């Protein structure tokens, strides 16, 4: 039996068939027929944001915290262009999104019509795939394909551009099982011969390290469980990228902490000194590797990635394994156990002794103060006072993000939402809204800097409208902290435009939105203020005035290797040369 319906109705039907519960969106002329259909049903909940960028980041937060694709609905022209930053953010961090945009009617395309933009042209390099649907008969098939592509292989954002006449016209609905998806079936199982070789290398390794990334989380909770088994049974140390935090618990005994530019001393030196590096779902980003020529010079490297183009892109892989993390880890564990679960235990024990020496450096130490709140102290207290709660953390981008990654512990995957690849200031507030929509009873905190937070603060209106008790924990140093830090270290302390001379009163701002505002500037008041935030049943803007000139350490300066880390202020004199300063 074929079903006839309008294109607008097809959109809603297809979303229901795909199991979509929530859509983040903003209406406009070119999507009115779809909004009319949304009005006449109850199966799908629509969350009205305040800006289309907010819709995409909210959908990212939703997707990252649930493992399901996030869905966005926006209008043509400015609606679509406002969504672009979110699309690139999701592309860089491999977040599955399906973004539906309205378009001017097909007969007006190309005429510079009102609110017309070449959406598929603009978003082609910003999406994993996109489509302009010109016939209603193809609409349902395209939407089903869109979900398939967004969620299979390396996840990513896809976009379907739907002209208004296609929404009005009637056509045949294509059911989900009939949609064309056969042409896109990425390989999931790794090459058994290379897995066997990797297991052999694991048996021989004297200084092994697991280096894990967002791919473990994208592969699903089973991947994290397998990773934990593998780490427990081999007793190898494990570090993770920013995107992979939570796949192995921070309280786990083999955990070295995050690696990379602001990663932990022990994690980076383990990477530098290892003889076997097992990369699971990470991509050798430049924040991780530092100077390529001196990156982990004496190790064999295994690279497990579902995206073949990630392998050998930056770092040569000795054991290139193309496949899904869950499938590959299952096979690695099976082969390793079948071969007798052997490791060079004595050598690995010595390796651990070395790591303990590095750990004893206590690279996250900082000088606390009794008069000013140090940002690190604020996060330590936040961690202590929220420990054990059903907690989700979002961040903006900058120093606070790195401190959050260093000082907060993540026990489970999908609990940490941050903009890694693109580094999008303004990500955290809308992301926290998306997370809270998915987990209404959980504690959702956005650790922010005041500058990032101001970039999408309009989304507080969304939080109020849907009674979302998101906690905006702003570490306010009245500076663009990371920019200021680089200017201090690289640009002769010339602080060009890296501070805000006219910040709002955040408490009054909170009240203007209808939220609760809390100001805290004395370390002695901090615990009480944080408890007040946690106990308040509603959204809170917490203005935490912190030390203005604190730098984020440890730090691997641009163009340096892992063993050239700066541990604190005393190390910083003249360390970054002219060549390093041109790097990003």
């Amino acid at each position: 039996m074929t079903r006839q319906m309008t294109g607008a109705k097809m959109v809603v039907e297809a979303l229901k068939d795909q199991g979509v519960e929530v859509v983040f969106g903003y209406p406009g002329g070119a999507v009115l027929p779809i909004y009319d259909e949304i009005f006449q049903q109850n199966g799908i909940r629509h969350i009205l944001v305040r800006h289309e960028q907010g819709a995409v980041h909210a959908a990212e937060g939703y997707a990252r915290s649930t493992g399901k694709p996030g869905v966005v609905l926006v209008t043509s022209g400015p609606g679509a262009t406002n969504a672009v930053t979110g699309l690139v953010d999701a592309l860089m961090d491999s977040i599955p999104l399906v973004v539906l945009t309205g378009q001017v009617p097909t007969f007006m395309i190309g005429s510079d019509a009102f609110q017309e933009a070449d959406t598929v042209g603009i978003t082609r390099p910003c999406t994993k795939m996109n489509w302009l649907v010109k016939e209603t008969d193809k609409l349902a098939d395209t939407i089903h394909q869109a979900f398939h592509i967004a969620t299979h292989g390396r996840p990513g954002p896809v976009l379907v551009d739907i002209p208004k006449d296609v929404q009005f016209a009637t056509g045949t609905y294509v059911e989900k099982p009939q949609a064309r998806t056969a042409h896109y079936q990425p390989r999931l199982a790794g090459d058994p011969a290379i897995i066997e070789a990797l297991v052999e290398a694991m048996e021989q390794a004297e200084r092994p390290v697991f280096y894990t990334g967002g791919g473990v989380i994208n592969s699903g909770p089973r991947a994290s469980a397998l990773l934990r088994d593998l780490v427990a049974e081999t007793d190898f140390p494990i570090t993770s990228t920013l995107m992979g935090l939570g796949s192995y618990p921070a309280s786990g005994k083999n955990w070295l902490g995050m690696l990379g530019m602001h990663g932990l001393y022990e994690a980076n030196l383990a990477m530098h000194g290892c003889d076997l590096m097992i990369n699971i779902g990470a991509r050798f980003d430049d924040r991780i590797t530092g100077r390529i020529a001196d990156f982990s010079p004496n190790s064999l490297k295994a690279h497990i990635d579902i995206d073949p183009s990630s392998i050998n892109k930056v770092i040569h892989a000795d054991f290139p394994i193309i496949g899904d993390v869950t499938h590959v880890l299952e096979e690695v564990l099976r082969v390793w156990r079948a071969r007798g679960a052997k490791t060079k235990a004595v050598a690995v024990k010595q390796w651990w002794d070395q790591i303990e020496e590095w750990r004893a450096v206590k690279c996250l130490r900082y000088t606390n103060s009794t008069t000013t709140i140090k940002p690190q102290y604020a996060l330590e207290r936040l961690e202590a006072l929220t420990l054990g709660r059903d907690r989700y953390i979002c961040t903006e981008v900058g120093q606070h993000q790195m401190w959050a990654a260093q000082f907060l512990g993540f026990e489970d995957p999908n609990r940490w939402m941050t903009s890694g690849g693109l580094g999008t200031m303004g990500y955290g507030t809308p992301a926290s809204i998306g997370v809270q929509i998915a987990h209404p009873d959980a504690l959702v905190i956005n650790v922010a800097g005041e500058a990032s937070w101001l970039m999408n603060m309009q989304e507080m209106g969304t939080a109020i409208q849907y009674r979302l008790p998101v906690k905006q924990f702003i570490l306010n140093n009245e500076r663009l902290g990371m920019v200021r830090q680089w200017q201090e270290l690289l640009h002769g302390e010339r602080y060009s435009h890296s501070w805000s001379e006219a910040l709002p009163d955040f408490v009054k701002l909170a009240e203007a939105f209808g939220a609760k505002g809390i100001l805290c500037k004395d370390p002695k008041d901090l615990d009480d203020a944080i408890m007040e935030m946690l106990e308040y049943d509603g959204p809170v803007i917490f203005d935490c005035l912190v030390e203005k000139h604190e730098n984020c350490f440890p730090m691997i300066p641009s163009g340096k290797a892992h063993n050239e880390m700066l541990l604190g202020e005393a190390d910083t004199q003249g360390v970054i040369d002219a060549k390093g300063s041109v790097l990003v």
Partner: protein
Amino acid sequence: MSPLNIEKGSTSHSAYDLRSHMSDMVETHTLAILVENEPGVLARVIGLFSGRGYNIESLTVAEVDHSGHRSRITIVTSGTPQVINQIKMQLERMVPVHEVQDLTVEGPFVSRELALIKVIAKGEHRVEALRIAEIFRANVVDSTLQSFVFEITGTPEKVDAFCELMRPLGEVRLARTGVAAIARGV
């Protein structure tokens, strides 16, 4: 602060120096890419090359299977082995790309280009143009008292050589298709 001293050919102005430790021998490869014949697919492929800074020396595209909605894009590109490898991987992961063949690696292949060359010449030069055309097996497809249009098919090098011989004889105007290529044998 001392002046910036960036090594010639270094990529360090844009990101970390990715290539210094790898082979920097630039190779030319001919890729045959079978794609879904749908709007935007060519833009997608070209966008990959411009967005990631890869070279395109020649590009041709046409539908090769009407009922199956398939087009073949032939690209001649150049780069270090690591870059060529990345180009293939990046192409292969595109959703509307069905197959990427590196003809240069896979074995002997035939590559041909068609060119239309207008030569505006007088007197003895017209005779000389016709004589050279005969040697190159170029056909005259249009003639006026002032001009000829030659059609020539061959490798890009043959087309180049023909054009170079024509230039001293008069004004040369040129339209080239770019390279189409296919593997020899089955």
